[in-house]
């Protein structure tokens, strides 16, 4: 059972297995294992989300930040307690959580803010999706000496981005 739950946490289960394992999370023991694996995963990723009082401290520090690091936003993250209450909801949420894992940015971003709050330097690194800074990047290239050594080669940067953000 442990191995299957581990695979579930890592998002490695086939659809058929997924359903079966999720159904079993209704059992309190299986759910405990599932939560434990998440704790381990969070610890490995150095996510601070599991530390007691995390949310309070995070909110305090964010409020105390002198600079606007990023607009306050709700970071989607697994909510353990409600899931324990409603196992059927958990099944849906697990699928959602696996989806989230594909996009590591939101949890990483939140973590980066907490870790660097003491340094007061680097903010959350996260996708700036719709900013459309390609025009700006293109304009910028002409002014960088290191870039100008290479003629149009650095324009690949602009091109590469545009491929992702059709605008």
């Amino acid at each position, binding site marked *: 059972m442990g191995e299957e739950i581990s695979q579930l946490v890592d998002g490695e289960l086939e659809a058929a297995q997924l359903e079966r394992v999720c159904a079993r999370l209704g059992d309190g023991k299986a759910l405990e294992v599932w939560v434990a694996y998440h704790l381990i995963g969070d610890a490995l990723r150095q996510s601070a989300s599991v530390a007691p009082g995390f949310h309070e401290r995070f909110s305090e520090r964010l409020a105390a930040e002198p600079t606007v690091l990023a607009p306050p936003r709700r970071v989607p993250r697994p909510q353990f307690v409600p899931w324990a209450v409603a196992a059927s909801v958990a099944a849906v949420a697990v699928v959602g959580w696996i989806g989230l894992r594909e996009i590591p940015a939101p949890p990483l971003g939140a973590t980066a803010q907490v870790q660097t709050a003491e340094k007061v330097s680097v903010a*959350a690194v*996260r996708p700036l999706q719709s900013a*459309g800074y390609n025009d700006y990047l*293109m304009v910028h290239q*002409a002014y960088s000496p290191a870039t*100008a050594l290479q003629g*149009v080669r650095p324009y690949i940067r602009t*091109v590469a981005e545009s491929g992702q953000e059709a605008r």
Partner: protein
Amino acid sequence: MMRRVWWFWTGLVASGLALAEQGAAPGAAEWLQTVANAARQLNYVGTVVYQHGNRVETSRLFHLNDVQGEQERLISLEGPMREIVRSNDQVTCFYPELRVVRIEQRSARNAFPALLPQQMATLSQNYNFRQGELARVAGVEARAYVFEPKDGLRYGHQFWTDNASGLLLKARMVNDKNEVIEQFMFTDLRVGGKIERSSVRPSIGRLPPDWKVLKVSPAVGVLQDTGWQVAYLPPGFTKIVEMFRTITGKPDPVAHLVFSDGLVAVSVFVETHKGQAHGQGLVRTGAINVYALQIDDHLITVLGETPGETVQRIAGSITRRR
């Protein structure tokens, strides 16, 4: 053409004298000028590999310098078709898949190598410049040159140039952990010989009417007062231009300020933006860090080939002049 070459060398001699007067080590600045010169003047064709993160992109590059001036074309060899064409000071990027073309007319000669003398001096104050080892790149003998930053506000730069032609074969940026964050490299290169004019022309002769044309206007003046200023700049960075630009899709002119330490540049853009802007915060793509933040009805975007902390700190110090 000859006038341009003459202009270049006059500038070089003048800057050399300026350096001698200031007693700064001329090595780095002179080296930059020589390599920029080779990139402009020579005719060459080669395959360029661009790497950043887990991504690798391969392109073909053609460069022709003749009576019509400098013509250059880069075309992607894999993935979606991309094409970048430069004809002297105009750069055009074609994205056939998106049916988009982006055109930028540079204002002549406001770009490198027009380095200010004080920038050349600050180069040696902020980077340790040294000649590295001999190596082989693109099948030819190359010499490494290294710019090591003296603080954490800039990346390290490693360059390899062709011993025979002086052309830049490989350029690499590294972070403070010496991890490569971006690299451009020729995997094959032919210098000299005939470059067909057709090879530097866009493959799309006439633009289909349904394509979207994004234009970035030439700067009217290089030193306009935009009303915006930065309170913080890393040591050695000085303002090289300040102007307004008109950009397709942006209703109001955009303020553009550029700061450089002689090796890299950081651009500050301020646009009018009513309501909450979507993309705010820091993002990195290759060696480029972009930080966006909103101040009242203005969206401020700071970007450059520096660590994220640098663009963020600059962004945080921007104010409107009273």
